């Protein structure tokens, strides 16, 4: 429809000045008049459709609930939700959790009817708005109309909107996590969450059940996360740094050309694959190795997850360190070599100190990555929240708990589900802090030598 509008706009602009030969009498190129009409045709209609679709589900549900007989009026919010879900399922022909009675069936038919009616209305309205928009724009065309400027203004605003999506995403993350976390902290005090030593996120179905309270002390999760992150960094930092040094300083161009892409392959492997490898290959291997020297090793030890995570992070550290080392001016390196130092000495005493801020920034980013890493720990680390610093025991992490709390069916406002959002908030805040710090250091350092 907007394509048609484009052609109509274009031909109208030409017709007004008297045929293709007289195009110079127009303010803008004929194509711009076409775009002008097309934009007027599609944008308002699109906005209408989007906002309609956003409002429609609520409206339809409200109408259906209104239509329910009086006996349903004084239901609690939870029961009402269940009822609505059942109606929806019935309407789409899915399995329903309660016996289907006449009222429910009627409501489902009503629901379907409303949806169908709303869609019809929407289609008619959208076409109408599109046509109206196009017609208005079409009638406005005259030689003096500054079509190009108007089209460009619209484009500009679209571009701004696109670039604001990043901001909206951040706001969306903060708001969605924050709201649920606040609801969680209304049920569980902040101090217990941050400093409690016991994590067992059960909430009872009945109030009189044993252990109905559940405890949400997240300290074991934080220590578990730190333990695994520590092991990972213990592997990744020396290996990644030495790799970067070797590739930057010693290796021939040919070896560099082979090794670098291989390490990039390492960075491109999905984390779920690392997790599989950690759980099925590395963990048994660690266990056997531990047993052969007489150590008690849990089959989901922190060590296995940490080792594999360390390997995953090697490419990140080595590429960021590589950048930092290469950013050090060659004159400094040449000066050190000229004074008779060996290459190792030049590296350790001159280049590394100069590159240190960049390397530290890279390590901070890597730590943030390790803290937020999910699949490896979900598959290879355990679920039991042990407060321990022993790498051979099973520990659990923040991300593992988020996944276990949210996967599966729970009611959305139980403390259990909300706890996941509180953990998510912690995760987001900590990684955000590390990222801002790391990126800031890296950027500042880069500017220093430029």
């Amino acid at each position, binding site marked *: 429809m907007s394509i048609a509008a484009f052609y109509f706009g274009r031909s109208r602009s030409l017709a007004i000045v008297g045929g293709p030969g007289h195009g110079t009498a127009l303010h803008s190129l004929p194509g711009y008049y076409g775009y002008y009409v097309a934009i007027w045709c599609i944008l308002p209609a699109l906005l209408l459709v989007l906002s309609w679709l956003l409002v429609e589900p609520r409206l339809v549900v409200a109408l259906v609930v209104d239509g329910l007989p009086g006996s349903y009026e004084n239901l609690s919010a939870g029961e009402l939700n269940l009822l609505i879900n059942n109606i929806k399922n019935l309407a789409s022909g899915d399995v329903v959790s309660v016996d289907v009675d006449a009222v429910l069936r009627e409501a489902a038919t009503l629901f379907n009817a409303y949806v169908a009616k709303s869609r019809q209305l929407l289609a008619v309205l959208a076409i109408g708005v599109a046509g109206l928009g196009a017609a208005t724009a079409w009638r406005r065309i005259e030689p003096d109309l500054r079509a190009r400027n108007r*089209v*460009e203004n619209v*484009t500009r605003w679209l*571009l701004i909107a*696109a*670039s604001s*999506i*990043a901001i909206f*995403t*951040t706001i969306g*993350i903060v708001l*969605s*996590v924050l709201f649920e976390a606040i609801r969680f902290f209304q049920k569980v005090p902040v101090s217990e969450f941050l400093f409690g030593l016991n994590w067992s996120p059960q909430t009872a179905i009945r109030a009189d059940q044993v252990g109905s309270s559940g405890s949400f002390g997240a300290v074991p999760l934080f220590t578990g996360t730190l333990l695994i992150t520590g092991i990972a960094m213990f592997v990744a930092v*020396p*290996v990644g*740094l*030495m*790799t970067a040094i*070797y590739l930057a*300083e*010693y*290796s021939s161009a040919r070896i560099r050309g082979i*090794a670098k892409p*291989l*390490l990039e*392959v*390492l960075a491109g492997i*999905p984390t*779920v*694959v690392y*997790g*599989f*490898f950690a759980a099925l*290959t590395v963990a048994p291997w660690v266990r056997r190795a531990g047993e052969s020297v007489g150590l008690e090793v849990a089959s989901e030890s922190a060590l296995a997850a940490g080792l594999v995570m360390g*390997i995953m992070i090697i490419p990140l550290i*080595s590429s960021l360190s590589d950048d930092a080392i290469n950013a050090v001016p060659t004159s400094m390196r040449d000066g050190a070599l000229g004074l008779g130092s060996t290459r*190792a*000495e030049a*590296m350790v005493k001159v280049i590394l100190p100069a590159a240190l801020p960049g390397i530290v920034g890279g390590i901070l*980013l890597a730590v943030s*990555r390790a*803290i*937020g890493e*999910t*699949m490896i720990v*979900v*598959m290879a680390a355990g679920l039991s929240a042990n407060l321990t610093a022993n790498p051979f025991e099973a520990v659990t992490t923040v*991300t593992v708990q*988020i996944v276990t709390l*949210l*996967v599966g069916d729970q009611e959305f406002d139980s403390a259990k589900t909300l706890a*996941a*959002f509180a953990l*998510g908030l912690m*995760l*987001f805040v900590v*990684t955000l802090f590390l*990222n*801002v710090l790391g*990126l800031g250091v890296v950027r500042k350092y880069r500017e220093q030598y430029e």
Partner: protein
Amino acid sequence: MIVPGMTGKRTTREIVEAGLSRRRRKEYLFRLVGILATGVGILFLGVFFASLIAKGSTAFKQTFVQLEIKLEQDVLAPGGELDLQYADFDGLVRSGLRAQFPDVTRRGDRRELYRLVSVGAGYQLRRLVQEDPDLVGTVQTLWVPVSSDVDMLFKGNIDASVEEAFRTLSDNQIAWATALQEGGRIRSQFNTALFNNGDSREPELAGIKGAVMGSFYMLLVTIALSFPIGVAAAIYLEEFAPKNRWSDLIEVNINNLAAVPSIVFGLLGLAVFINWMSLPRSAPLVGGLVLTLLTLPVIIIASRAAIQAVPPSIREAALGLGASRTQVVTHHVLPLAMPGMLTGAIIGMSRALGESAPLLMIGMVAFIVDVPGNFTDPATALPVQIYLWADSPERAFAERTSAAIIVLLAFLLLMNLAAVIMRKRMERKW
């Protein structure tokens, strides 16, 4: 302090020479550690791929057994009418199996015997009859899949010397299977089920088609949204945005978003798309939206780099000839930066394809047998399928997990290869 002529004090040259061998040793060690460190990463890669291929390659084959099955009239068409829905196809397969071992008569033994053949044999039979109803009443010689345990036996994953109680196959079953093999009734074929089926509880019937289609729909949504938006954002930031607080904020924001843990995006998707907008759970549409937000920073950063690589002289020439700034962008900058942008998009897509943590949050971990047919059908994605299979206790699923990983890595490799080739092909030197 050094006074010429004094003995016992060493000259600078002597001090240096004395330390030289120690320093050279250190230099050598340093270099060795460097080589070792580089080796660790590459060694891991080698071990990883070797173990993956060793474990996964067998999953591309499936063992089949040959049975003569009599398609009996009274079983398939009890009232003279063909009854595809409720006819006892499994029973026919079983009697075919019994015919091979007439001396197995005890009930318990027979039940064990039936477990040699996959439940998929019944489905296969039904399809056969469905396609050609004239076969009813005839005897057909068919190759049907064996159960996953027998499959494992022939692939050498079950050790017959282990005590019977610790094996998934009994002594009898092993003996029967071996007898079938000696009779030439066992053969190994390409495992088409792996690529044609959705998920299943039975390893020998489980396939990745559902997951692949789910990933496909998701990536379709992702590319359709994230590429235009990402490119538009990059154009605005590079070509139009005034350097002020707002554009600084956007820039910092984008860099941070690229480093936010992916699981946090999952929480966002759960809270916003599912709870607030009430979009369907487990749908590729929602997965695609979440992955769009996830890949957007990657694409924006790559696109900005591509735009920066276009020399300013081209913009100035176009402006000098009277083009507006929008025209400069659409006529010159965009076409010249397009290869770089596309490369960035492919890299973003390969990241999206491997992502699983946020998908767990929005309910794409359900056990789904059907192959999704559109954007709102419940679906899983390939990495999530790998996660699900990795959790299954059956031996045969470990093999299939490896096979699914091989397929996933093959896709990723293809995408990255495409990106590299595109970069090489369209590279321009200014």
